[in-house]
């Protein structure tokens, strides 16, 4: 049975032991997003999740990986079989990327981080290994602990091992750029683009698919601007803003500084931080109850709060 | 209480609910007691478990429009129409349903002269603004009717009861179209005054059987019986099951809807200019769900109008349901509103509906409605009219 396997896995058991059942503890990945949602106390005890790819089944489109594995290592393994996940690689770990929950700027093509987590094993505040979800790509067995863990900043449990859904890479990926295109019209024309980015002047589009389709999509967007070949992702400013896709139309009303917006998603990379956002009060109450139910003493990743980004 | 329902039929329902959206009363109320699945479950509760016939249970059965939209939607082929007819007939017999005054009214249907006289009175009253509009009568009942004419004996044209009194023009149009296709027509007239459909819906099955036997006796064998009222056609095609006799089955075999009859011989009709109209087809339930020959309406009508459009509501009932719109005006009105909204979305010039009850019910809702055969007749007669400019090229299919 899956769950007994988890507790029988000495690597995971060892991690659970390190986390223990008492005292504040923070989990460290690549420390790339260390301050998201608040800073942990400086003297907090830190642990590291185990690392390594446990089982990769390309034909199942799934990979079982320890949370401490770097995204780079995972990406290298997956790309050797022509696959990818929605996790962004910013030098951090798989567990960190999931706990932070931020999407890849290519989320239009890769999908969202929240949809990629099939199964999660984490260490609870009592130091116990808990298993949620299942190994199959489709599953509605019980309450959805994996969804809860994505973006929870490790405040409800410390990720030990996960199973992710993978996707095949597109046959062809091609960047094109334009300085006179209407990015919203471009997004509308493209069926499943890898990305459409816009900095207020220039538009970048990542076309994905079979070569002939990429060519015809390129011809189709030419109606909306003059495009030349691009050479990859533009440099993304450091701060993340979360707007609605239509909200990007009047982005000029916000003090973003230099920005690159992900058209179609509402995500913005900006020079200035986003003014504080307000969480629905009743949703906040549910969040607080979650924290109390999962970690009554507030020992897991203290100082962090997903509602305080 | 034993409703006399065949267990085999009743047990066919697996409660999957796939019929819910096809039921007009469920669609507007969202209530299981007003759904086919719910009504079947209540039949089971009453018959198998001795559940009492409370007012709510009776109401659930009485509010069924008997449009039978649930039947084609049901993957398990539950014969819902027969179940509800039988249930209603037991309710009537037990006095739980259809009070004496309704029964009396239904009996008048088979008395053509009386019905026509009554219609004339009503028509006069209407002109004197004495009839409340909510009764849903046609905008103007006819004061006088041209007599039926026998033009041959290739087919009978079934003329029936209410329709003959209120919409005889449609029969005349049907006769002209059939004649244009080279058929000599004998209108059945008072020889077959009523098919018994409305009585059957009300649970007066014995009355229907009596009428059926009488009609079979009165009409000569072997001549096809063309019907231009979907409700009558459906009832008459069911005589075999209703009477469970060989004569009944043989008779039912001869019954044919007018569109169904014309579709294979369409090339016998002259080619004419189509009417410059965008026409929405509203299938009468008993054509679509019971006879299931609604495809023929389109085939036959298409060459005669500029454009045919479908409504986007999956053939949901309009709420007319024979006498239903009179007995349950509020619910029938809500169901009709839904239909009128679909008609508005289709932005058609006119709605074509092949059943007198439906055309009257829709017209009472303020919607321009004609029988398809009237449209065809009009296209043909415009062609016949003297002084027309010469015809343009042929255009047969104009569906789109």
């Amino acid at each position, binding site marked *: *049975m899956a*769950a007994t396997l988890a507790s029988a896995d000495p690597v995971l058991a060892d991690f659970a032991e390190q986390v223990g059942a008492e005292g504040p503890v923070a989990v460290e990945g690549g420390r790339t997003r260390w301050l998201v949602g608040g800073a942990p106390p400086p003297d907090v005890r830190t642990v590291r999740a185990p690392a390594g790819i446990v089982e990769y089944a390309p*034909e199942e489109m799934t990979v079982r990986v320890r949370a401490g594995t770097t995204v780079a290592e995972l990406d290298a393994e997956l790309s050797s079989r022509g696959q990818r996940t929605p996790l962004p690689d910013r030098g951090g770990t798989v567990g960190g990327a999931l706990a932070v929950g*931020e*999407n890849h700027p290519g989320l239009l093509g890769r999908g*969202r981080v*929240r*949809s990629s987590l099939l199964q999660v094993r984490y260490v609870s505040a009592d130091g116990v290994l*808990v298993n*949620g979800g299942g*190994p*199959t*790509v*489709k*599953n*509605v*067995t*019980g*309450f959805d*602990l994996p*969804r*809860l863990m*994505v973006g*929870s900043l490790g405040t409800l449990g410390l990720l030990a091992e996960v199973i992710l859904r993978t*996707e*095949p890479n597109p046959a062809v990926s091609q960047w094109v750029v334009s300085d006179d295109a209407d990015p919203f019209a471009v997004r509308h024309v493209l*069926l499943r683009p890898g990305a459409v980015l816009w900095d207020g002047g220039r538009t970048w589009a990542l076309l994905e698919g*079979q070569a002939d389709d990429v060519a*015809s999509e390129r011809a189709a967007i030419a109606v909306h601007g003059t495009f030349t070949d691009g050479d990859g992702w533009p440099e993304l400013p450091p701060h993340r803003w*979360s707007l*609605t896709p*239509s909200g990007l139309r009047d982005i000029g009303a916000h003090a973003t500084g230099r920005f690159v917006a*992900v058209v179609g*998603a509402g995500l913005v990379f900006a020079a200035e931080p986003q003014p504080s956002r307000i969480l*629905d009060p*009743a*949703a906040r109450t*549910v*969040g607080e*109850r979650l924290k109390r139910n999962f970690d009554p003493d507030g020992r897991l990743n203290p100082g962090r709060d997903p*509602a305080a980004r | 209480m034993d409703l006399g329902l065949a267990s085999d039929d009743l*047990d066919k329902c*697996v409660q*999957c*609910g*796939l019929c*819910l959206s096809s039921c007009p009363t469920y669609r507007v109320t*969202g*209530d*299981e*007691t007003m759904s086919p699945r719910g009504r079947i*479950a209540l039949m089971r*509760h009453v018959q198998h478990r001795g*559940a*009492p016939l*409370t007012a*709510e249970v009776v109401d659930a059965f009485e509010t069924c429009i008997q449009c039978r939209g649930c039947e084609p939607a049901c*993957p*398990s082929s539950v014969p819902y129409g027969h179940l509800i007819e039988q249930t209603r007939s037991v309710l009537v017999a037990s006095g739980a349903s259809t009070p004496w005054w309704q029964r009396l009214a239904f009996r008048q249907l088979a008395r053509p002269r009386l019905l026509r006289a009554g219609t004339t009175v009503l028509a006069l009253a209407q002109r004197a603004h004495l009839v409340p509009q909510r009764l849903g009568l046609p905008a103007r009942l006819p004061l006088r009717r041209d007599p039926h004419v026998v033009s041959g004996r290739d087919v009978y044209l079934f003329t029936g009861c209410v329709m003959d009194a209120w919409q005889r023009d449609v029969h005349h149009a049907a006769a002209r179209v059939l004649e244009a296709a080279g058929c000599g027509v004998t209108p059945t007239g008072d020889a077959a005054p009523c098919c018994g459909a409305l009585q059957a819906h009300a649970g007066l099955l014995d009355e229907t059987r009596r009428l059926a036997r009488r009609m079979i006796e009165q009409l000569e064998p072997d001549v096809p019986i063309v019907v231009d009222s979907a409700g009558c056609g459906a009832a008459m095609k069911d005589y075999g099951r209703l009477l469970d006799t060989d004569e009944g089955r043989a008779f039912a075999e001869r019954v044919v809807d007018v569109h169904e009859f014309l579709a294979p011989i369409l090339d016998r009709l002259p080619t004419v200019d189509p009417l410059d109209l965008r026409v929405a087809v509203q299938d009468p339930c008993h054509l679509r769900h019971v006879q299931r020959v609604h495809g023929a309406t389109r085939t036959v009508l298409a060459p005669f109008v500029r454009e045919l459009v479908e409504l*986007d509501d999956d053939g949901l009932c309009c709420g007319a349901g024979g006498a239903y719109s009179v007995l349950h005006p509020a619910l029938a009105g809500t169901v009709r509103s839904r239909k009128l909204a679909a008609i508005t979305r289709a932005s058609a010039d006119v709605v074509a509906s092949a059943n007198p009850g439906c055309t009257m019910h829709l017209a009472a809702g303020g919607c321009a409605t004609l029988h398809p055969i009237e449209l065809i007749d009009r296209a043909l007669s415009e062609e016949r009219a003297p002084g027309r400019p010469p015809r343009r090229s042929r255009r047969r299919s104009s569906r789109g």
Partner: protein
Amino acid sequence: MSGDPAVDDLVAALGEALAPDRVRHDGAERALLSRDASVFEGGVAGPVCFPVSTSEVQAIMRIAAAGGHNVVPRGAGTGLAGGAIPLGAPIVVSTTRMNRILDVDVDDRIAWVEPGVVNLDLSRHLGPLGFHFAPDPSSQQVCTIGGNVANNSGGPHCLAEGVTNAHVRAIEVVLPDGEVAMLGGLDAEPLGYDLRGVFVGGEGTLGIATRIAVTITPNPPAVRTLLLSFAEVVDAANTVSAVIAAGCVPAAMEVMDQRITVAVERYVGAGYPTDAAAVLLAEVDGLAHGVDHDAETIATIGRANGATDVRLAANDDERALLWKGRKTAFGAIAQIAPDYYLHDTVVPRSKLADVLEQVYAIADRHELLVMNVFHAGDGNLHPLLIFDAREPGVLERVHLAGAEIITASLDAGGVLSGEHGIGVEKQQYMDRLFTDDDLDHQDRLRRAFDPTCRANPGKVLPVGHSCADIQSLRAVPTGVWG
């Protein structure tokens, strides 16, 4: 009048909050709402409410909270795991009157709908705009979006697009304490825990969804539909695995075994070969060249795996007919025997062939007829046990065979349900997949929404876990056959 003054007061209070004619407490109504489309009996409904707005749902919840009453939301009642079955005479909240499509925004690619909107009605509404709602359960002409959200429903076309959870952006929920919460949001990365993601699949135990923002998906410009025939079921299953392994994720991959195709042919005549042991219905959509490429890939892989025939639907009519066959499969079965029990488990794709063989063997052992029609692309098995409930003793056999099928799926590394949910159907199997600690954490999640366990109590978690452990609900034990 119920004869119980407390109940009469409750009904009166609800009637005052809504409208007297939208609260019913008569025997007919309660009897009908005590069941859904599953085989389970034993439900008992309390007052049945038909609210038309969020504030009315809120009023119901407040009355329930004040009086300590339980509440069960209900959509169209097409659930197959008994999720909408009321246990212990709770207030039943029917969402069927909340059926308006409130707003469609093509820029944001969302539609705001009320929970009672019928799945197919939404796609029909979006059609003229060139969009649709991607999850397409076989019950889509009747089931509600609220029900889809609560059950995280899937459908044949969820292989590439994902099930309901991937298509829900925000949900307005009336929580069991009567507070209204907005979960998620239309912005790219909403703040806080992903409560919207958690609510989807909550089977009505986390509150009542009153407005839902779903993602709308553009209609693909090109579609290719293939029908592959196989002499062995195993070959069809292997083809499915190989297609995915080759880096091709079709929009849909459905397998039907010979018993199904024979029945379907007799019923609607979809043009399936009746001499093949199994057929694979595969559909690819997207841009013109991509679909041709993928169709070619599927055909080639199919042939390499022993496909005896590969057919490409020549036009829309043919395509529609092939799908009609698939979608009326249940109907076709009803022509063979009056009753069926539809199972729903998921196994790793590579184990499909193996588990299928076991399923046939299990049915044989219990002298039952089993047919298989399933979402092969995601390993989602739907073995259908077909029987006549009037045959004495047959129900026990169906029950035993079902348990063995579940065991076989779990042993192969699978899960209990791919799309129907746990409801009352599979509670007793939950501890086969999860430890007490795992279930305890699920219970903690649930109690964050519903600390007093009043929303759809007695569902999902097995007895022994607080919210399910309300013995008084079980006047009649679950699992009773109807």
